[in-house]
């Protein structure tokens, strides 16, 4: 099993009124050192990568499977088709192995786009 974590944020050039409102409250509480706040969302997907591999019939390289590298293009596709709106949002994703596959907890590629 793999866990995909997708962090979605408004692009830097897009105004984030929620972040601004949060910043104001933090300043009101005396946290003057905070320079900016950006609000975003975290989506966590649990993916049966073994079922995916057997379905696509690819006897994938176990090392690649461990790192989640073979899952990444598909995860990015999901993000770009639905989970994030590229017009206004950027994202990064992280794939890691979770209990159930017995391969430990290798941390996947942690790449970002902007």
């Amino acid at each position, binding site marked *: 099993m793999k866990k995909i974590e997708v962090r979605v944020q408004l692009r830097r050039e*897009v*105004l984030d009124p929620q972040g601004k409102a949060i910043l104001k409250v933090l300043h009101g509480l005396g946290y003057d050192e905070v320079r900016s706040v950006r609000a975003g969302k975290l989506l966590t997907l649990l993916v049966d990568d073994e079922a995916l591999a057997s379905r696509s019939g690819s006897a994938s390289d176990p090392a690649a499977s461990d790192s989640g590298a073979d899952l990444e293009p598909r995860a990015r596709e999901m993000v770009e088709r639905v989970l994030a709106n590229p*017009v*206004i949002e950027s994202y990064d994703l992280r794939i890691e192995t979770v209990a159930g596959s017995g391969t430990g907890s290798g941390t996947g590629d942690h790449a970002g786009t902007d």
Partner: protein
Amino acid sequence: MKRIAVIVFPGSNCDRDCLWAIEQAGAEAVPVWYRSGDLAGIDAVVLPGGFSYGDYLRAGALAARSPIMASVRRFAAQGRPVVGICNGFQLLTESGLLPGALLMNDHLRFRWQLVRLRVERTSTVVTAAYREGEVLEVPIAHKEGCYYAPPAELKRLEASGAVAFRYVEADGRPAERANPNGSLQAIAGLANEAGNVVGLMPHPERRIELVLGGSDGTPFFRSLVEAA
């Protein structure tokens, strides 16, 4: 008689108003449940306001990926009228049928109020019966209506005359305070190049008879029936 479909998603709540407005304008109004996917015999499509799929993820995002939208996309590609009002506009941008996106209002509040709109373009399926520059009074009711497009895209939209409606003062002049949500260039509604796909945040279907406080939305639906 022309047949105009109103697509009903779980969470749509302006579908009845749109059906009524279409009937009043002289066409047959056909509610189409989002799962049916069938637009056979339909002459125009309206995507109504509301909160399709509870606005989960992003307003309009999940409805935009439902199978009926594939039919709507094909329908639009044939040059036939597709109109999105409020949540319907969000759906059109999320589907890529219109450019840009609708962000949370810059003041973060849901706002119901009357606004003034200037008709910027009459060569669309919903504005042919208006005069260019005419100022309409119609309500808005939304929290995610702040129109955004990247600077280059925005420039292209203005240069090509894609803007159909803009928030203005009663005298037709644009002003900061007339813009109820922070939309860039005070854009309230847009059309594609051919003018057959139109989206807007305000609700013309709530302004089609005097008992509702005004009838500035009537030509909107008359135009649509004519174009269908």
